[in-house]
């Protein structure tokens, strides 16, 4: 093969890859608009929505509990190690709490939910697709987006801020245990410093982020379920993609949301 042919093949591959990704983006956008459309169309299946909130919220609490208590504790300990040299260890409380409220609670809750619930959404919907259960819904005249995707997306959107708030409270408790009980900072000083520096806008920032992350995790998880092709291997691939893209999206969108919210809150 001469050089020209190799170059042509490379350019063709590149072009095909770009087209494939653009097509994927188009399909994702189309999916997003379709689910939005069906969100506001009756019938409204509140029972399915509550089931999803229960699954994503209540069933995630134990993982959120473990993640948040150790995050708060280890963060408090690290701050102490750094700040004790300049005698600023009483700032552990506000630093940990602000970091939890603005960043750690929504982002780490997002990563936990993307891993646990994003994967579950893709696997459940994907396996329904390969076993023709989605076709069965459609044949009955039930819109599969409305029945399967909408409750999961709304469930994730509503459950995420609740989980993030729980993360914040338990994370605070973990840092308090280290700060007050282990390092022995005066409890009044510890809480006083927090009320000096914390503002309601910081908590609001975290909750807004968590809501957006929940929506995105829901959309990504259900999209990768609906686009499963093939058998069990396809379901595995879809699940994997849902987790990977869910986590990446949380981290990337966090950056842009932080820049945006910093200006308005």
């Amino acid at each position, binding site marked *: 093969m001469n050089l020209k042919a190799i170059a042509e093949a490379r350019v063709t591959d590149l072009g095909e890859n770009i087209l494939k990704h653009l097509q994927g983006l188009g399909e994702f956008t189309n999916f997003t608009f379709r689910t939005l459309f069906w969100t506001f169309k009756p019938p409204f299946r509140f029972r399915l929505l509550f089931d999803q909130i229960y699954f994503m919220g209540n069933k995630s609490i134990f993982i959120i509990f473990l993640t948040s208590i150790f995050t708060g504790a280890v963060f408090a300990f690290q701050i102490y190690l750094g700040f004790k040299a300049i005698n600023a260890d009483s700032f552990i409380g506000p630093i940990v709490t602000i970091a939890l409220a603005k960043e750690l609670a929504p982002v780490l809750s997002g990563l936990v939910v993307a891993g646990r619930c994003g994967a579950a959404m893709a696997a459940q919907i994907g*396996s*329904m697709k390969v*076993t*023709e*259960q989605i*076709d*069965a819904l*459609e*044949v*009955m005249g039930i819109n599969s987006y409305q029945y399967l995707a909408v409750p999961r997306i709304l469930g994730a959107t509503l459950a995420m801020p609740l989980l993030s708030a729980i993360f914040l409270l338990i994370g605070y408790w973990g840092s308090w245990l280290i700060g007050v009980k282990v390092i022995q900072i005066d409890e009044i000083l510890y809480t006083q410093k927090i009320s000096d520096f914390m503002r309601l806008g910081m908590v609001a920032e975290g909750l807004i982020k968590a809501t957006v992350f929940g929506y995105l995790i829901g959309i990504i998880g259900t999209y990768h379920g609906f686009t499963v092709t093939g058998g069990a291997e396809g379901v595995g691939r879809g699940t994997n993609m849902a987790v990977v893209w869910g986590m990446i999206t949380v981290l990337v969108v966090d950056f842009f949301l932080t820049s945006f919210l910093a200006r308005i809150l």
Partner: protein
Amino acid sequence: MTGKYAVEFRNVSKNFGDSVILRDLNFGIQRGKITTILGFSGAGKTTLMKHILGLVMPTSGDVIVLDQTVNHLGELALREFRTNFGMVFQYAALFDFLSSFENVAFPLREFTKLSEEEIRSKVMSLLDSVGILPEAAKRLPSELSGGMRKRVGLARGLALDPHIMLYDEPTSGLDPITTHTVYDLMRDTQRRNEHRGFTSIIISHDIHATLKYSDYIVFMEKGRVVEHLDVENFKKSENPVIRRFLEL
């Protein structure tokens, strides 16, 4: 709904990109009868069925089902229209998170305003009509045999008293005895509902069962209808492809 045909294809062609799946189909499926769409794999049988349901639209031509032109219906009208159908899928396609009872109750809960007591009574009667014992009603699809799943699928398909029942390879993966039990059940269902113009359409490549249980056979090859005959005339067909199929 008084026409002779439950389903009519008028000059229907379907292309997916460059490949032609259905080629200029012109035929009708008799109302109140069992018609089997027969053919080799890749003949276009499943695409044909999806056209009947309005899941796929023709590239050209019209699909008329129960006196309505399916390809002219909007999305919401199509959903309403699909309640005229019951369908048994190749592998039953029961919702794996629901028990047999709940699978059959599902369309009743979605589309009717029946009370819980009425739903219970109708579901148990449907399950009984397909030979599912009350104790099996509580089981999940994963706890049922292949034949039982098909029966529950049939009961679910019949829940809304459809006008057309579609069967997509209803006996694939079943042993010969269960295959005939399922076919007997399909024939009984047809007989019980024939008075109201109930029509059964079966997609199959099981020639022996087709000859035994069908009233009409549509034979497809490469997207075309090669023959559309009643069973007796089908057996006498001189078409070499059909002869090959009959001699299997």
